[in-house]
């Protein structure tokens, strides 16, 4: 069995202290295989986003460990941590988080700019990412002038411009109508299948979750159920495809 790309070991996260102490995660253990698509599903306030933030190394667990490709991430600090965040992860948020008055191209180039990629190179790669999402003609438009679906596609372009190994999507279709949401879902699963990018979707939408290889149900900070989809592509197959 290959090393999981991300694995959480008895992760606990509490907010506040004393009488106000609130346990958002109460001991979560989870292995995520490279190349799989996984849904973290549960009601609002169940701790989904908290788990995602811990897995994405944006937040430190109160106790427990998170391993990235077999390495304990507690040893990652400063520049190394920032490099890992920049190179390994891409984010898609429900609320887009695009800089409204900057061009779509500027928005998509941001991760590359942070990575220190040169001007012409990052423009080339950002345009390629926009091309992939059929948004090349909107590159010069201001982000604020796009439709919801175009915004979310720009966000996906931004998430994948730095060729990440994992894309985290927190309620990616929450702000979109059904038809547009379906298009965005197709794009995300295409990326997962054709490029082998590990997809971690946080959602309370059962239909979206059903399209993933695995569904992790979470309630009150605990994993209550893990369901493997019958038609799931084995992760090893995806890895072999990529190697070929």
């Amino acid at each position, binding site marked *: 069995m290959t090393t999981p790309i991300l694995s959480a070991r008895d992760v606990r996260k509490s907010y506040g202290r004393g009488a106000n102490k609130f346990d958002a995660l109460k001991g979560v253990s989870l292995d995520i295989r490279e190349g799989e698509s996984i849904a973290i599903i549960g009601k609002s306030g169940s701790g989904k986003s908290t788990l995602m933030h811990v897995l994405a190394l944006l937040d430190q667990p109160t106790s427990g460990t998170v391993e990235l490709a077999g390495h304990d991430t507690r040893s990652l600090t400063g520049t190394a941590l*920032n490099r*890992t965040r*920049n190179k390994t992860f891409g*984010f898609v*948020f429900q609320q887009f*988080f695009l*800089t409204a008055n900057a061009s779509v191209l500027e928005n998509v180039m*941001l*991760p590359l700019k*942070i990575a220190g990629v040169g001007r012409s190179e990052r423009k080339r790669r950002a345009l390629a990412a926009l091309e992939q999402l059929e948004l090349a003609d909107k590159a010069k438009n201001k982000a604020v002038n796009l439709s919801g679906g175009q915004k979310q596609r720009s966000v996906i372009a931004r998430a994948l411009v730095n060729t990440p190994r994992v894309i985290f999507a927190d309620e990616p279709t929450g702000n979109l109508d059904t038809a547009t949401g379906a298009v965005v879902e197709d794009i995300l699963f295409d990326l997962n299948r054709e490029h082998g990018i590990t997809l971690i979707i946080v959602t309370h939408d059962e239909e979206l979750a059903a399209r993933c290889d695995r569904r992790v149900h979470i309630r009150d900070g605990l994993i209550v159920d893990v369901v493997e989809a019958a038609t799931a592509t084995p992760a090893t197959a995806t890895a072999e495809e990529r190697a070929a």
Partner: protein
Amino acid sequence: MKSVDLVGSAVGNTFRSKTRTILTILAIFVGAFTLTITNGLGTGINRYIDDTVAAMGADDVMTVTKVAENAADDGDGPREYDPDAIAGAQEGPPGTTSVVAPISSADIDELAGIDGVVRAQPVKSVDADYLVHDGGTKYEIGIGGFVAGMQLQLAAGEQPDAAASDFEVVIPDAYLEDLGFADADAAIGEPVTLAVTDAERTQHELEATIVGVSEASLGTSASAVPNDALNDALFDAQSTGLDASELDSYAQATVWFDPASPADEVTALQDRLTDEGYDSTTVAQQLGTFKAVIDGIVLVLNAFAIIALLAASFGIVNTLLMSVQERTREIGLMKAMGMGSGKVFGLFSLEAVFIGFLGSAIGAGLGILAGTGISSALGGALLADLPGLTLIAFDPVSIAVIIAVVMGVAFLAGTIPAIRAARADPVESLRYE
């Protein structure tokens, strides 16, 4: 993130909220503009004083007088009559003696022997009767002393040549018209006659060539300045008929010291001269108090400008705190994408520095324009009697210093919001329901 991109992003972010940024820049502009003008005022006046110092004498000489023996008990009743005493030719500040003892050749030798004195020479002061050109009207005129190294402020021609054996003279521009010259250039090379009367009431006339025309300036009276050859000749003519002891009696002497010596060595030399019974004044001392007053006034004006800048720096804090507030999500996102806290700090403090740069550069630029305009307007009217005075002058170094200081203040103001941005927690910034 590369430094170029960091600077580029900071500059770009500056204009995201144009009205707010422009108002902040305006506040800084007011401070920088004021600072530029007040500073220019100091530069202009002090530069004028420096030029004047050069016109009054070289910087490696001091004027020495001998303290009269009865001078000390100045305030204690009537002064005893001393037939040898000379009424002071030199005005001094209150409290200093105005009656001096004569200086003889022996005293000159003594002076020359004092440690630190390079050379000592008696001041041969000449009292001329009149100046005349080409048989025209005779005009009264004073005779000024000239020491090598002195720089008269000239309207035309050149400085008198101390080494020349020909009689040379520089005349003040106030005499040009009355002597019948069309302008300063027309006077150069023309002959003039100077007359002195000796002890036997005989008048002697000496002819000299005009080599330069001086402009009136602060501290110099409208007097003709001869070169050494002419001054000696006038003095000899004036001294005709005096007996030997009267001849060997001067009111003042000039003492040269090493021009490279620092101020404390000059002071030490002056102390030694005092011990030997001599009063001494350097040219710088004659104008020193005046300069101190100007510096004081400029300091007060600068303080006002700096208060304006401080007020403006609160504007920077406010503007940037608002941006940090508005851009919380963006900052969180950039951090989630792996931007380090140091870079986030850099992004916001560079933005502050850039705002400071814009305000100060525009302020200094317009300050220079306005100052130059005011100077030339006043120079033609109110200050026409002080040729050579540029009321508000600018030197590139102090302008650069002003811009740098304002950028420094802006940086300091920017640290508060920049630290807040750098500390922002990506998870908190990105959380939503």
